[in-house]
C-alpha cells in the first residue's frame, strides 16, 4: 500500500501557503495602514498557525500508515 498522497497534500498546502505569503507581501507594499496590520493579525496569523499545526500531523499520520504497510504486507 502506498501513502504518497498524504505527502503530496502536504506539499500542495505548503506551496499554497508560500504563494499566499508572497501575495500578501506584494499587497502590503500598497496597503500600509493599521487596518492591514489588523487583517494580518486576525486572519493571516490564524492561517499560519493552523497550517503549522497540520504539517507535523500529516507527517505523523503518514509515518503511522507507512509503518503499518511495512508490517502488514507479506
Amino acid at each position: 500500500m502506498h501513502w504518497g498522497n498524504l505527502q503530496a497534500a502536504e506539499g500542495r498546502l505548503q506551496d499554497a501557503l508560500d504563494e499566499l505569503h508572497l501575495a500578501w507581501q506584494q499587497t502590503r507594499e500598497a496597503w500600509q495602514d493599521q487596518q492591514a496590520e489588523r487583517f494580518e493579525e486576525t486572519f493571516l496569523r490564524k492561517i499560519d498557525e493552523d497550517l503549522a499545526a497540520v504539517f507535523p500531523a500529516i507527517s505523523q499520520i503518514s509515518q503511522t500508515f507507512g509503518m503499518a504497510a511495512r508490517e502488514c504486507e507479506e
Partner: protein
Amino acid sequence: MSANVRDIDAIRDFRTKLMRFAEELESCLQGLQLELQRAFEWADQERPHYWGNQARRAYDQLAAARTAYETCRMRTVAGHRSACIEEKVAFNKARRRLEDCQQQTERVRKWSMKIHHDADEFRGRLASLRRLVDADIPQALASLERTSTVLEQYAEIHRPAPSTDPPEKA
C-alpha cells in the same frame, strides 16, 4: 483611523488569491479525508481478508503436509522405515507459514486500532483547517470586500471634478 492605500486593486487582487488559497485548502482537505478512508478500508477490510485467506490456505497446506509426513512414516521399505526428511521439512515449513499468518492477523488487528487512534487525532487537526475554509477565510474575504468598497466609495467622492474651463485654443 487614517487609511494608507496606494492601490485599491492590490486589495482586490489579494482577495482573489485568498479565494484560490481556500479552494486549494478545500481540495487538500478532501484528499486527506479520502486517504484516511482508504487507510480504514485497508486496515479493517483488505488486510484482514488477505491474511484470513492466507491462514486458511496455510491450514490446508499444513493438513496436507501432515498427512504426507505421517503416510511416509508408516511406510516401510525392505523392513526399514523411511527418514521422510523432505516430508518433515515440508511439514515444518507449512507449520511456520500458518503461525506467520496467525501472527499477521493479530498484527493487522493491532495496527487497525493504532490507525483509528492516530486518525482521530489527525481529524482534530483537520477540523481547524475545515474551520478556516468554512468560517475564517469567508470572514477574511468579507473584510477585504468591505475595505475595498469603502475605499472605492471614498475615492469616488474625492475624485477631482472634471474641469469646466473651455479648452485652450491652440
